[in-house]
């Protein structure tokens, strides 16, 4: 069978995942040290910025440049998301890190009734994705990739592809830098010049690697890609580049997640019945459940449902990320019975906790984790029920087991008379950095009934009870 491949190249993926592709404002993604630009969006390129530029220089040229920071792990996730999305066009998808996805098309042409219609379909759906993308077909996987990196191309025949490959500049080829420089050093500027040379002369001078690469490119040597396996569960996260305080502003990011979901469902021939959408916050999260009685695949359908659901939500804290999961789905053609609803049995404690959580509300149930802070009220924090607890810091001193929720004012006259001071002072002056500084002298005191309390004195002379020793 003749091969036909499609390569989708998303040159600005890590940047655009954090900010809309159509924004007019210049934005750039920074490297790890926040010293140089890694990627520039169209607006910033138009103003003369380019990758590799120092941040200071870039800002001196474009003062209103928005600076974004990326991370590698996220980039890999984003690419997987796109692979899920492409599930709607092909069953055979290959990840091409960092910014590309390769689709096998030959076997899909009949289903989509020809390349032209398929191409059109792809372009329309790409637009909805709001990501910069260059796409190209190729008679080999490598040809598709090379042509995508050289600006895009669409044809069905190998001859057309071979003709187009001739004009690709050597500088665009993803060869080892030294090898590319060496080729350019011989005056070669287009791929065609290279293909015209006797292969044995080339191999003799450049080693077998280059000729093998050319053979894979032209199709003289097989080059099967490694395919991406569509995962069995859908649970994806999308961090937002800025804090969102209004629910409408969440729809943009949500649309991307739902597009991925649609690809995932199509690839599996599934439809989703119930989604869980978590709005992630700096501490904690808000969770919503959205359902569809018959089940649906289409991103648009789900988007509408989510929009309706979100209208009824008030955000108590700014949202910094989204997480979308499918909690119930069924096969596209199956009847009413649900294969998956009882699939996962949960162990009892977890079940109990989830029930309690359902009853009492998520905020009411948490674990207590220690925190390295001298201020007693900040020496612990609420931690979510799942996940590992942070390592226990060396607590500096004797601390009461029972800390009052808020300190109680004591009558000045009782301290030293009714309440005997046993130990102290321990002076705590700390916390200037988050606007909740404390200046206190702590003592252990003994009450007439023998109880031992933890009390402190403030600079003004007021005394407070802060806790009880067991």
């Amino acid at each position, binding site marked *: 069978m003749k091969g036909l491949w499609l390569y989708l190249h998303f040159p600005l993926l890590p940047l655009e995942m954090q900010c809309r592709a159509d924004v007019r404002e210049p934005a750039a993604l920074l490297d790890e040290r926040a010293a140089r630009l890694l990627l520039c969006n169209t607006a910033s390129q138009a103003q003369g910025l380019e990758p590799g530029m120092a941040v200071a220089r870039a800002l001196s040229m474009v003062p209103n440049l928005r600076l974004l920071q990326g991370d590698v792990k996220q980039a890999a996730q984003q690419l997987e998301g796109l692979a899920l999305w492409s599930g709607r066009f092909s069953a055979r998808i290959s990840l091409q890190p960092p910014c590309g996805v390769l689709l096998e098309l030959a076997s899909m042409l009949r289903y989509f009734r020809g390349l032209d219609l398929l191409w059109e379909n792809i372009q329309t759906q790409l637009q909805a994705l709001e990501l910069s993308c260059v796409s190209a077909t190729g008679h080999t996987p490598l040809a598709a990739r090379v042509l995508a990196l050289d600006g895009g191309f669409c044809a069905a025949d190998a001859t057309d592809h071979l003709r187009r490959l001739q004009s690709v500049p050597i500088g665009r080829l993803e060869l080892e830098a030294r090898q590319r420089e060496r080729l350019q050093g011989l005056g070669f500027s287009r791929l065609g010049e290279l293909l015209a040379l006797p292969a044995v002369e080339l191999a003799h001078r450049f080693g077998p690697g280059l000729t093998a690469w050319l053979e894979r490119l032209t199709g003289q040597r097989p080059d099967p890609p490694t395919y991406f396996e569509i995962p069995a569960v859908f649970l994806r996260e999308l961090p937002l580049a800025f804090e969102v305080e209004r629910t409408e502003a969440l729809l943009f990011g949500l649309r991307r997640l739902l597009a991925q979901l649609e690809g995932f469902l199509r690839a599996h021939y599934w439809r989703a019945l119930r989604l869980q959408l978590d709005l992630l916050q700096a501490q904690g999260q808000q969770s919503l459940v959205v359902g569809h009685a018959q089940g649906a695949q289409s991103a648009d359908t789900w988007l509408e449902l989510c929009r309706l659901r979100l209208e009824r939500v008030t955000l108590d804290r700014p949202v910094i990320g989204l997480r979308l999961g499918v909690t119930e789905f069924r096969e596209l053609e199956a009847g009413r019975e649900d294969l998956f609803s009882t699939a996962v049995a949960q162990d009892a404690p977890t079940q109990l906790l989830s029930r309690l959580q359902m009853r009492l509300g998520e905020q009411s149930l948490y674990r207590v984790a220690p925190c390295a802070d001298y201020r007693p009220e900040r020496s612990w924090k609420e931690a979510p029920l799942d996940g590992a607890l942070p390592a226990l810091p060396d607590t500096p001193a004797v601390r009461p087991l029972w800390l009052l929720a808020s300190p109680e004012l004591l009558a000045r006259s009782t301290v030293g008379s009714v309440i005997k001071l046993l130990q102290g002072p321990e002076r705590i002056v700390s916390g*200037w950095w988050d606007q909740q500084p404390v200046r206190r002298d702590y003592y252990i005191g003994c009450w007439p009934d023998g109880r031992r309390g933890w009390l402190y004195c403030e600079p003004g002379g007021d005394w407070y009870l802060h806790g009880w020793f067991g």
Partner: protein
Amino acid sequence: MTLEYAELHCLSCFSFLRGASHPEELVQRAIELGYRALALTDECSVAGVVRAWEACRGSRLQLIIGSEFRLQDERVVLLAQNRRGYAQLCALITKARRRAVKGRYCIEWADFGPQPDCLLLYRPGGNLPQAAERGRGLSERFAGRCWMLIERLLGAGDAERYAQQQWLAQQLGLPMVCASAVLMHLPGRQRLQDVLTSIRLGMPVSQAGFRLASNAERHLRSLNKLKRLYEPSMLSETLRIAGRCRFDLGELRYEYPAELVPRGKSAGQWLAQRVHEGAALRFPDGMPAAIARQVDHELALIAELKYEHYFLTIEDIVRFARDQGILCQGRGSAANSVVCYCLHITEVDPRQVNMLFERFISRERDEPPDIDVDFEHERREEVIQYIYRRYGRERAGIAATVIRYRRRSALRDVGKALGLDAAYLSWLCSRLDQRADSGQWFEQLRELGGDKPPAQFRLLLELVDEIIGFPRHLSQHVGGFVISAGPLSELVPVENAAMKDRSLIQWNKDDLESLGLLKVDVLALGMLSAVRKTLALLSARDGKALRMQDIPREDPQVYDMLSRAQSVGVFQVESRAQMNMLPRLQPRCYYDLVIQVAIVRPGPIQGDMVHPYLKRRAGLESVSYPGDAVRRVLERTLGVPIFQEQVISLAMVAAGFSAGEADQLRRAMAAWRRSGTIAVYQQKLVAGMLERGYSEEFAQRICRQIEGFGEYGFPESHAASFALLVYVSAWLKCHEPAAFCCGLLNSQPMGFYSPAQLVQDARRQGVTVRGVDLNCSAWDSALEPDGALRLGFRMVKRLSRKAAELVLQAREAGSFVSVADAQGRMKLDRGSWDVLAAAGALNALAQHRYQARWELLAEDPALALGEARVADSGVVRLRAPDEQADLEEDFRHLGLTLGRHPVALLREGGELNGCLSAQQLETCRPGQLVRVAGIVTNRQRPGSASGVTFVTLEDETGQVNLVVWRTTAALQRQALLGARLLRVSGVLESEAGVIHVVAGRLTDITQCWQALALRSRDFH
């Protein structure tokens, strides 16, 4: 009874990233609190003691010198009782520091013992049995000199610890003494101390948790508070200890190495003998009587001030350099004396310059002589290693430079500690004008926070302000050596520098000066290398040694050339600002060059002294003096103060400063940025001058000039030595352009211009330059028999010297006839062949670069293994590169081209229609609208010209100077900052032969180059 107290455990900011107060602040606060004594005990260091000592002077506070050592959670404080104890302390610190890498130390318990003149305070850690054992050991070794150090910091478990330590002390029979483990002078520095801790840990304050201090008790506490915390016996013990420490830094006496003077001679006799030996060489026809009198006078002055050893030490170093053929030149106060001329420390001939020695060393001012010696930059290390060899590592060390927090580093580190985003901090930094003065800078920063700045931002502002000026670490001074008679480590601790085989002392140049210790500056100067190499080329060519002193002086052709601003490559006067000044100043003699070197500096510019001087020089303004005293100071510069020395003298004659005050003014000037004490002197200066009838306006200008000198002090004594090198290099450029250019190329990197610009300039002067060639080039660039300049292999980027040597060896058997021949005769690595071909060195053998590379690739045996050998690799004939491709490769691999200038290609290609060349501008009239284009070779926004950016464009005929005003720049920022090729429309201005284009419209035409390449390559 009034309470008295001595704090015996106190760290300053010289315990880097721990102490949160300057030594001066600690001393000041201790005085305010009525402490009897203060021990400065920085961690394994005495780097801060000189400052504390200076701050103590004149007060009743006793300063004790000591040091703290940390051994896990235990602490040892050693205090020096006397001079010997101080030497023992320094030796211990040296030992601990020399064991570890730069900035760290490594100490063991066994190290405490051989310090019979030190007192030891021991503070145990948490392990009691261990502490008991340790205490017993220490109290044996330090019998009667060991104390249990009790420090109540009111942390958790403070009371128990207090009780434990008391019990332990009784068990061991150790006396107890109290202290506060001080890190700051006021509790208000806690924030900064927390920030320093976070910076040290590399995490935000909010995450540092229990690694921060729990409270602010580690400050200098009031006597009342101490009384509540400690037993009276512990408090009185502090005074007993202070009473036993009797060492004062002022006791340090510096002794020069004695071995320079032969046995049986006094230093004075020996110096006189050396001077007279030198005089015989300098004045073969006998010394003129006036000069002989001057020599006697200078020697008498040197003897009176006891500086003989200093001159002999420098003479010895210079003699070594001369024996090795290393060119050197002294400068600075005392360098331009007849004595130094005779000793060959300087080439400035007293017969040509009427310089009075006392201008530089003065009996009244009692400032130490200061001679810096510049050496060829490539060979200075030989001189440094000689000094180490001559005096031994234990007697010679390099002075430290204290690296301090400056605005940018302060903003970054404090910002990180406050948990601010790195991208946000980059943004902040980029929005601030780094050249603004500190008030403006803070104002800009404050504005960036908005009208209602968040609390974090206010913290940032306050803490950045506090941390600026805090020392960060010690680094080595560029070349200041301290050489002593005895082991240096008994004078000051020595620690390892970052560079291998270097060690530095813990004091910087100001500390040395405060203590009256003398240092010798061994500096590096690229121009000396270039001059020596040029002289060697000429000597070889003519078969006759040509030395610096053989160059004819005061040649009018040289001054003509300089007055036309033809100074590319000439020492000091080659920058754009200097080039603009040359035609206006029109130097005609050596002293004019002295002024030329000094006038384009922040001092004279900020004092508005440049224009008055030029006017008076041009005869447009009359020269007058308010009195004879002022006339004596200012006569040589037409009544306008130009040099730092003049401003100081002026303070004496016109504002009534005493000699001592004038000296303080000089020191304040050097340090005004960090101390800000200069304002006091400025007020005094203005008041004094008004009182004596000078105008307020003139007095204010002098004040601004003083600030300018603070930015970049440039005294006449240095200018005088530099001017000589200006003349010598200008003479070489004028009469021997090929050799001079060759000397410069062989001394790169140095100077203001790139090799490409130097070569272009030489070609404009008529020098023939030939490319790198496998058969003709040597490692260095060289002169060919017909006088042409042949580029050397060193110009080829990424070609090692070793590879070049292989080529030269193989070539001894005869020239190479083909690429294959060359490959057969030498084994070079692939990379070397590549760069040789890329640089065009094989063009003569293979027609062009592409073919040369193709042929080279065929012969690689590693790749040929197992492959069918291709018999005839000549089958494939590659097309030759076009001119533009050749030019690109030239730039990439040689850094310059001998072909046409890129702008010429663009002009020919029709890309620059309507643009005038640099040469054509010379025939335009001022005010004319012109359009120019060229490669951007330089962009500068000098601090002294507010808001103006200077851009230099280069085309095939020369340089075009652009002036871009602030408003123009703001509107066309992208073209201004981003373009490599720029087209500019603007108005031509011309003054005294200096042509500028005041830019209007700027267009980035960088893409024209690619466009040209595309057109020529795809459609030829």
